[in-house]
């Protein structure tokens, strides 16, 4: 009896020791992982500090430099450091609200410097206001750098990034004296800076863009519903009565309606359709459903989509590239004004390749960009003059005039040259007014369709 209990105790003790050892081992492994992770975050942070310091230095040089050629180098350097800084900030475990403004600042600095470098490269001098903006960014980068350095000093005493990440968003306030509080302060500081408007993708003017074609009276929900019905009928969609599904308040304010598809092949699939509150234009609808087989060629689908667009009032649109995925063709159409393709005015139509049903429409791009009675400017360069500006290595196959989107408010009239370089297809855009090469797109040919990058 005594022996037995001794054995039991012995086994239990051995188990206990084994568990303790295992636990200790796990603890060690976890601690090591934590240190490793913290080191990675620490590195990202220290690199972020260097990036901001480098931005400040390069911006300073660009303000001092008297040589246009050197200035391009300084500005490119600003852009490069700002982009790296933005990337590093994104890797830190900070709550989104603590990095919003700082991230925006870095993205805009990179963007603005690129636009300025381009301006210099094409022989344009920086204007007084450009220089003022650069000088303003220089000061702001300096302030940001100083604040980050303060955190860096604190960091030397060892800051746990994991702790920062675990903190609930609600607990973030500037009163706390630690790391969080410092980041809150930085974000507040950045928030006070004025908006930055220039011709780049991250400009505040692009972010706050409003639809260009919705200047008009508001329509009632019932009028909107009638419009929705008309468009769905034009798409030959059978549907149940349209239920009210609330109002949507994004870049475009719209009424939302929901229904259920009728008919035999498509029963029970939902239909959602939205109509802008102003002017009552259908922004998009979808009545998508699984499409099992493809019995239709791409061209036939394009014909059907075009006919549908004509029925609902989009006249004279031209299909551009198209893609087929899951036996559904997605076909973007662009407006044509005086023979010129207007790429910003784009409407997309989805067609089922089994029976040619229209499955969806997306007119948001068109509504955001379309201008009634768009005044088409006359090109200053002839087609031949523009063509001389295209690299002679490009074997040009087709040429046409086109309006391409620009980040500033004014769209750009260009000659579009499509051609081959080696085995690859490229599209080159030459500004028809200034002769500048505006953009180069590489065409990527995938089984589902053509894409450009």
């Amino acid at each position, binding site marked *: 009896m005594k022996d037995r209990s001794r054995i039991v105790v012995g086994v239990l003790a051995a188990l206990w020791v084994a568990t303790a050892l295992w636990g200790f081992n796990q603890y060690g492994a976890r601690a090591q992982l934590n240190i490793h992770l913290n080191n990675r975050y620490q590195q990202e942070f220290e690199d972020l500090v260097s990036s901001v310091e480098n931005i400040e230095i390069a911006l300073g040089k660009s303000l001092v430099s008297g040589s246009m050629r050197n200035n391009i180098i300084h500005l490119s350097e600003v852009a490069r450091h700002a982009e790296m800084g*933005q990337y590093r900030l*994104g*890797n830190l475990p900070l709550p989104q609200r603590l990095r919003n403004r700082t991230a925006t600042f870095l993205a805009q600095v990179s963007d603005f410097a690129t636009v300025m470098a381009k301006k210099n490269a094409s022989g344009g001098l920086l204007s007084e206001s450009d220089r003022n903006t650069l000088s303003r960014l220089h000061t702001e980068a300096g302030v940001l750098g100083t604040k980050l350095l303060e955190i860096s000093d604190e960091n030397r005493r060892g800051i746990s990034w994991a702790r920062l990440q675990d903190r609930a968003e609600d607990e973030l306030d500037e009163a706390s004296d630690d790391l969080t509080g410092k980041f809150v302060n930085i974000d507040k500081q950045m928030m006070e800076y004025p908006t930055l408007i220039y011709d780049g993708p991250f400009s505040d003017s692009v972010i706050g863009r409003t639809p260009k074609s919705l200047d008009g009276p508001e329509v009632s929900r019932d009028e909107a519903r009638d419009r929705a019905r008309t468009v769905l009928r034009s798409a030959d969609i059978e549907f149940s009565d349209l239920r009210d599904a609330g109002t949507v308040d994004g870049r475009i304010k719209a009424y939302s309606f929901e229904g259920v598809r009728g008919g035999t092949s498509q029963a029970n699939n939902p239909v959602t359709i939205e109509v802008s509150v102003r002017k009552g234009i259908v922004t998009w609808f979808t009545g998508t459903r699984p499409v099992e087989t493809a019995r239709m060629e791409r061209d036939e689908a394009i014909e059907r989509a075009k006919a549908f667009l004509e029925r609902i009032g989009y006249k004279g649109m031209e299909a551009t590239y198209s893609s087929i*995925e*899951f036996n559904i063709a997605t076909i973007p159409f662009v407006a044509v004004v005086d023979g010129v393709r207007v790429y910003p005015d784009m409407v997309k139509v989805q067609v089922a390749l089994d029976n040619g049903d229209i499955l969806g429409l997306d007119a948001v791009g068109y509504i955001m960009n379309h201008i009634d009675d768009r005044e088409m400017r006359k090109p200053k360069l002839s087609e031949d003059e523009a063509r001389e500006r295209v690299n002679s290595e490009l074997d040009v196959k087709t040429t046409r005039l086109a309006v391409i989107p620009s980040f500033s408010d004014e769209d750009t009239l260009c000659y579009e040259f499509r051609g081959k370089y080696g085995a690859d297809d490229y599209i080159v855009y030459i500004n028809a007014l200034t002769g500048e090469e505006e953009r180069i797109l590489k065409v990527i040919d995938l089984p589902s369709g053509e894409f450009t990058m």
Partner: protein
Amino acid sequence: MSRHSSTRLLRVLCFCLVLVTVSAGVGDFISAQRRTLYWGSTGQDVKDVQYRLRQWGYYDGLIDGIFGPRTSAAVRQFQARNGIPVDGIVGTATWQALGLWTGGGGAGTQTSPPANYTASAGVSRSNDVQLLARLIHAEAQAEPYLGKVAVGAVVLNRVQSPQFPNTLAGVIYQPGAFESVSNGRVNLTPSAESVKAAVDAINGWDPTYGALFFWNPYKRVSAWIWSRPIVRQIGQHVFGK
């Protein structure tokens, strides 16, 4: 907690099994020509097909190298989705669509680039689609189709926004940005519907009209997130600017 770790262990084991299967298959990628596979075929190349179909969500059976009814059904489904004649036989077209074709145009031994690389294809979008589809699946699996597209659109809006990293992977893997990334659910195989939603979002459809955030109003979220202007609600998600 313990159930959690045991399922994780199971997953690790499964992963090891898959890994073994895959590494066993590597040798075959070099073979010059693929044979035609049909009901009853066995061998390493059948495993390759099963593995790929499973990766893409068509097949959920065992990777056993035996071309049985489930493999056949998966092949048919794959063919239907990709516009290949539906015969349940893995011939040249199906091999190519699976990205596993190793033969060249002719029988010659020319040094050609890898099977699924052509000069002008360069990079393919399928990468982006798969990554986005995984996030959509993990975040919005139980949501209606519209809600899936909307989640995809929010991610893409973030890529375009200066407030967020400027790459798709940067946005998705941003520390703390998505719960499903923090807890690893993002690595699950996406459903076909999630892949379709990802394609629609990448094609430009944005049911949120530019939203940058989404959250579940029935769960506890920070007060700050509620301070965002709300665009709309779809299913269990509120979308905000």
